[in-house]
């Protein structure tokens, strides 16, 4: 992998990790469509992905630093007291409940699923499926929206992340496992799940990003020892990780603003078009 390719992959991963368009799907598809010769099965590719994920997780920690301090404090307070008294304490427990199914499924299933479906054709097909899911989530949501003067007013009828039920948090957390399929977006699935559970779009995105942080960070930290293998161009990889973090930071800021009134529809349409175009390009070898 050249330095330019590493930087491009960092930018792509950071930008697509939080947008509901599947970073894994793009990481599988784009190099294949550009006819890049590096192999994702190469032993040095895993440390590269680890660093990119740590970059993304760092961006999320920076954005939500105040909330994470309050959440961690709230977690210990509620855990020791054995009772939740504030919204922050409830959010801390919701995140724990949401993270457990993702962590269990991640440890036991991730490598098996990824190795089964790590082809560009599978990624393109699942990207189309992801698009259909995004449109489906929005259709289900529209049925529950009251008529209102503006989208912002419509959104106010729905709940904040702290009010989601524990069962819904566990289901949304478990849905993250679907994102092991290249082309299915973790943030898309969790935002969609949040919408079905009755959250505002912006709150569903916030819950999705908070839920993603321990999973991305944990997966990255566990793989850190692989970074110390020989022959890894660590300087290049760190530069790509920094770019990934900056792209993730900008993406998260944009999305939180966008989801004040925006919907998943444009991302759903993008996934369907990108998936179909990719399938055509792969089929005809263009």
């Amino acid at each position, binding site marked *: 992998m050249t330095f330019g390719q590493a930087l491009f992959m960092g930018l792509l991963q950071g930008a697509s990790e939080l947008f509901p368009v599947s970073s894994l799907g793009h990481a599988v598809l784009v190099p294949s469509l550009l006819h890049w010769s590096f192999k994702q099965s190469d032993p040095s590719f895993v440390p590269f992905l680890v660093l990119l994920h740590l970059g993304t997780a760092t961006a999320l920690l920076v954005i939500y630093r105040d909330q994470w301090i309050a959440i961690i404090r709230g977690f210990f307070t509620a*855990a*020791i007291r*054995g009772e939740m008294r504030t919204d922050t304490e409830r959010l801390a*427990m919701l995140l724990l409940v949401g993270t*457990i199914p993702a*962590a*269990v499924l991640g*440890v036991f299933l991730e490598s098996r699923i990824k190795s089964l479906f790590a082809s560009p054709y599978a990624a393109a097909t699942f990207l189309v499926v992801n698009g259909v899911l995004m449109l489906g989530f929005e259709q289900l949501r529209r049925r529950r929206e009251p008529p209102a003067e503006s989208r912002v007013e419509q959104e106010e009828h729905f709940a904040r992340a702290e009010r989601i039920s524990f069962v819904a948090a566990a289901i949304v957390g478990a849905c993250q496992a679907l994102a092991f399929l290249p082309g299915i977006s973790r943030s898309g699935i969790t935002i969609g799940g949040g919408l079905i559970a009755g959250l505002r779009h912006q709150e569903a995105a916030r819950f999705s990003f908070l839920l993603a942080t321990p999973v991305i960070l*944990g997966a990255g930290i*566990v793989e850190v020892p692989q970074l110390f293998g020989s022959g890894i161009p660590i300087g290049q990889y760190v530069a790509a990780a920094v770019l990934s973090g900056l792209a993730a930071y900008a993406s998260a800021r944009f999305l939180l603003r966008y989801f004040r009134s925006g919907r998943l529809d444009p991302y759903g349409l993008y996934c369907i078009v990108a998936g179909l175009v990719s399938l055509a390009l792969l089929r005809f070898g263009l």
Partner: protein
Amino acid sequence: MIKSNTVAVGLGVLGVVLIIAAVLYAVGILQLFSSGSGNHYKHAILCVVLAVASFVGANFARPRTV
């Protein structure tokens, strides 16, 4: 959450079992649900997280006398 001494004790015992499983995974004795032999740190960390969740659940389930 259900307030019951039985549930609280059950979750506490589960937490202890998970801590033991974490140690066994970390030193490479336990190979259950893992691919290949050796130390399974991912499984060990997961067991620790689940143990913490069990202990928290046990504390929440414990009936309180006012």
